[in-house]
């Protein structure tokens, strides 16, 4: 691997989402109950600065969010977001 290279662009939405999924329990809980918490997810997308070409695009994204099982999302916090697995390895 060469030094100083620019890695292929990662969609900024993924970066925002990963940081949020690791640290924001409320956001994760909304995703676990995506049908019930559609409005909350919509508000969170706005807060996170995730934009869409128009209102229809956002509604389509929210529909898709509802159809995903986000149940494993907590592992990101469990494994990568807490600053150490418990108990610590060292």
């Amino acid at each position, binding site marked *: *691997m060469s*030094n*100083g*290279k*620019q*890695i*292929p662009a*990662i*969609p900024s*939405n*993924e*970066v925002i*989402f*990963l*940081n949020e*999924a*690791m640290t924001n329990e409320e956001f994760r809980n909304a995703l676990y109950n995506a049908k019930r918490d559609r409005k909350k997810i919509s508000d969170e*997308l706005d807060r996170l600065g*995730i934009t*869409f*070409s*128009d209102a*229809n*695009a956002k509604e*389509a*994204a929210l529909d*898709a*969010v509802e159809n*995903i099982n*986000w149940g*494993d*999302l907590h*592992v*990101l916090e*469990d*494994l*990568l*977001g*807490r*600053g*150490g*697995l*418990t*108990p*610590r*390895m*060292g």
Partner: protein
Amino acid sequence: MQDDSDPLLECLISNALLRFDANLRAALPRTAPQLLKFLHSVPTRPEQVLSVRAFPHFVLPYWLSPARARGADAEFQTDVIYSTISGYYSIRLCDNIADNDSSPELRKFAPCAAYLDSEFIRPYMKYFPTTHEFWSVFDEFWAKQAEASVADSLLDDVDEATFASLSSKKFTATKIPIVAVQFRYRETLTSFEQWLRFVDCLGDFAQFSNDFFDWHHDSKYRITTYVSSESKRRAPRNTVTEWFLNEGLDWGVAELKLRFDNVKLQATALGNKAVLDWVTARGRTLDSDIGKACSGLELVKTFGRITSRKQP
């Protein structure tokens, strides 16, 4: 949980933990409750000590000990575990302060390290007179641990060579109870050097595992590690999160597996059944953790696809 079928080991650990807690509260009645609160993730119960994710500081000396001596020499065995608990707490206290990895109030508890260090040393004074060769090895490993921890925390960049020669040596104090067992039961001599190599190899894996799984926390608190340094080296124009999503996960998983393969090799060379069982169980946990991390990151990619999808 590893070795939960060994009631003697559980009993020894339980007794040592109870003694540590009682002595700490008696010696530092005002500060012990807060100190214990601040030092999160330190073991306070046998099941935490025996958790397969935990570094086996407390159980390696027991596994090295001749089977017949474990119960017959319970006082020594408990003393060794008690000493290791005290040393572990001292190291955690210093590390947490150095890494700002706790409440800023924890810095006020730094003098407690003096008490913990004396409790780490004191049990060995019962068994080894001051002129015993144990103490020169003790001094060497205790100093190496301190040197590696401080020197590592002062680094602005950690490359592979620095990681191998310094960062992974932060587990060197684990060798002290192993040396104590060696001098107590001289008959283990033949495999002694192999045990020290196993600790080195395990330290290398454990430190990388900590750096890898803590990448987000370390980045937030600006803690320099091999993983954070590699991120800067390999993708200097990207954030660590971008690098992790792009290639950091795959790179880290490959490194973890490589290091764990070395642990397996050393364990096989050691030929100790309890160690081999632990390594097998640790390998299963590692595979499970890696699988979960990968599936979690798949959800991140799914979110990216959903929210950037073009309308037809």
